[in-house]
């Protein structure tokens, strides 16, 4: 059977999922982006990877609409008046979401919801708002149905933020993922405690170090002051913009080609990095110059996105296995100083090369691509996400783990993250979790997330899935959220059930 027929006749895909797969298969029949022999050589050896973004990009990978602007102005194209009450706003947003593309075909970003909603709450009681928020969250969960979809909150304490947290704890959904922008001194302890309680109830939100992120991108004119937002598996991107693409070097595979650490550092790494940079240039030029996306999208016309606020993300994955292959089993990444120093050297080298490259159409990032610690997807077994320590090799003391994270985070402007399952009893002492967040952020850790180790909602690479849904899919049944597909394979392949439970 052809790839198309496999999709058409599959028994474990929903109608919507088949449509997406068919569209991908069709796109991949075309090959408009030229590649270099160098690229092909590394690509064939799986040492660099295009993330299956499709051969002919006709939309950016991730789009981060300025939802606050949308809430103020409505949309000509969608024939929506500016809302003057909460119900109109919720309906407008639901309509907009249907019209925001991404690599998954659905929005990866639904907005900084507290700021979007807060101006519309006057005159409504909590009892009136909560059921509306819950319906709205259920709408996103059931229609977007992708764990890569993300909402942001904070760093300020708002009524909308509190009610959204409460609603999220009650609906127990996997979608959207929430990030709380946190900064000590701006985010009150009381609000942070409520967020942490919510994390212990439904694995959401995760925590972004606002102090570190807020100067990453210039703020858009008349837009949110902090200029950034967090989407998908913790990509830190310009709001009113997004990411053209995400491509990656698979260090784990690159190390297979290396005869020594020096060989990797001095030859393979610069060559693979260079080949990928050239490829990203070609990809982005096609998207900007040939696909007509930016020329025709109403999102651009109505100022919800600016082409000038898009970046290309240069990703990497598999540091753990790379170091293991280069130094042997006696130098375990995460705990061995020599292993950690080599990782630092590799990252420094790669980051410098990426920083020195002048990237097309990257105004918002000063003409460069930005580094992202890619968290993986599907059932890849051979590569631990980004610079994370492989499950089973985590340092004994939680704090040593966080120190290691913070050390590696400094390379990644476009996002890097860690996931810690914690003792369910931590729900009784969220102050302790708050101390950990404060401590981690004080030493420049940029992002972390928790989930209770006994939760049905679990984090895979960053996205959330329900254990119960993964089990259904593993039995061969169709499930609504296709991130359960990626989750199921990844959960098994990477032994995620055995992540070291922290705070015990």
């Amino acid at each position: 059977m052809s790839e198309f027929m496999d999709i058409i006749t599959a028994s474990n895909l929903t109608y919507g999922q088949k449509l997406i797969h068919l569209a991908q298969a069709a796109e991949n029949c075309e090959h408009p982006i030229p590649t270099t022999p160098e690229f092909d050589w590394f690509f064939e050896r799986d040492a660099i990877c295009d993330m299956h973004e499709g051969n002919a990009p006709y939309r950016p990978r991730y789009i981060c609409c300025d939802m606050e602007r949308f809430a103020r102005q409505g949309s000509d194209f969608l024939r929506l008046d500016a809302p003057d009450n909460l119900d109109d706003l919720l309906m407008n947003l639901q309509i907009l979401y249907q019209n925001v593309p991404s690599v998954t075909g659905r929005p990866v970003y639904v907005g900084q919801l507290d700021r979007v909603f807060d101006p519309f709450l006057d005159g409504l009681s909590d009892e009136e708002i909560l059921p509306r928020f819950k319906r709205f969250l259920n709408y996103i969960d059931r229609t977007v149905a992708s764990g890569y979809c993300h909402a942001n909150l904070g760093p300020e304490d708002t009524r909308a933020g509190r009610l959204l947290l409460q609603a999220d704890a009650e609906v127990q959904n996997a979608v959207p993922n929430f990030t709380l922008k946190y900064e000590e001194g701006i985010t009150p302890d009381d609000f942070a405690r409520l967020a942490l309680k919510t994390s212990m109830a439904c694995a959401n939100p995760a925590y972004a170090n606002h102090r570190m992120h807020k100067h990453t991108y210039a703020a858009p004119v008349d837009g949110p002051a902090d200029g950034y937002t967090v989407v998908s598996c913790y990509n830190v991107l310009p709001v009113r913009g997004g990411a053209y693409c995400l491509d990656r070097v698979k260090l784990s595979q690159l190390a297979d080609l290396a005869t020594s650490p020096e060989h990797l550092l001095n030859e393979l790494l610069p060559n693979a990095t260079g080949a990928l940079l050239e490829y990203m240039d070609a990809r982005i030029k096609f998207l900007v110059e040939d696909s007509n996306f930016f020329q025709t999208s109403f999102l651009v016309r109505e100022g919800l996105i600016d082409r000038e606020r898009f970046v290309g993300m240069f990703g990497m994955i598999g540091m753990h296995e790379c170091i293991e292959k280069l130094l042997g089993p006696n130098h375990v990444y995460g705990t061995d100083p020599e292993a950690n120093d080599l990782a630092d050297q590799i990252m420094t080298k790669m980051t410098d090369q990426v920083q020195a490259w002048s990237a097309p159409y990257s105004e918002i990032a000063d003409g460069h691509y930005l580094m992202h610690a890619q968290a993986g997807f599907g059932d890849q077994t051979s590569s631990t996400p980004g610079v994370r320590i492989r499950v089973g090799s985590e340092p004994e003391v939680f704090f040593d783990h966080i120190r290691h994270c913070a050390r590696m985070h400094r390379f990644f402007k476009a996002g890097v993250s860690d996931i810690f399952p914690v003792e369910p009893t931590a729900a009784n002492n969220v102050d302790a979790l708050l101390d950990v967040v404060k401590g981690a952020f004080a030493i420049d850790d940029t992002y972390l997330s928790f989930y209770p180790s006994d939760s049905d909602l679990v984090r895979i690479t960053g996205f959330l899935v329900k254990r119960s849904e993964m089990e259904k899919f593993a039995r061969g049944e169709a499930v609504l959220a296709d991130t359960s597909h990626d989750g199921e394979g990844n959960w098994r392949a990477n032994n995620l059930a055995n992540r070291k439970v922290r705070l015990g």
Partner: protein
Amino acid sequence: MSGRLSLHPRRTLRRQAFMRQLASPRLECPCSKNWVFNMSIADSLTAPVNKIIPFSLVDGPGSRTSVFLQGCNIACAYCHNPETQNLCIGCGTCVEQCPAGALTLSDGVVAWDKSACVQCDTCIHVCPHKASPKIEQLTPHEVFDIVHSYQPFIRGITVSGGECTLHPEWMRELFALCREVGLGTLIDSNGCVPLWEHEDLLEVADGVMLDVKAWNPAVFARLTGGDAETVKRNLAFLAERDKIEELRIVVVPGWNDPEQTIAGIARVLGDKVATTKLKLIRFRRFGVVGTLADAASPTDERMAELEKLARDTGFSQVELR
């Protein structure tokens, strides 16, 4: 001494000196304040450390490091860590049974090689004296260096036991060091050491998490082998100094008198009852050896009843565990 005897020869020597002092008759009564040695040079003051838990969720507010000292001055029937009650007397029973060869006996003193130990706890299970050979004699500075390395992830430390207040000078020094770097300092105590004799320790302590195990002296004595009077005096003294972090009653069916204890505490606290945190803890037999090894936990209804009683008595911060 062979190279395997100890990771840290300096510590072994100190340990041997400590053990010899322990064996002297002057120190036989563990309830006496003489338990503490009069070391003239503060830096050589050590305490037997059973373990340090970098991150504890249950030993006070926020994220804290817990330091457990070995040796207790009472022996509760429900003790969950009976191996922390006594100091090793060097009988040698555990040495032969250690599967990893991590224990050696010389000069009547057991040395523990931490790097060889596989943490199987055989030694603890076979010890006939409710002791453990896995103890390190550490100075306040040595412990401080460890806990300090956990900043900024912790807001403080809690020293527990055994009974940590058997080492008041050592604690005072450790706490003073912690305070200098902004780490909080809590004492977890059974209240059977007269704390009013250690004002200087209290000065550097944020507060005490105090057990009130029973109220009636006979009940208290049967449960713990100790004297309820000291606990009551400590309770009054700490309340007066505003040094009570929390009070704890473990409810053990048939073994203590939580109603009287709640009422008794409230009488002592007076007005402060409303602002004092009270934890009512269910007895659980996990880890317990001896008479109560198979005893039942109190029912949920019983715990709810006690919670209500506590609230009716004036406690506004009551937590069930």
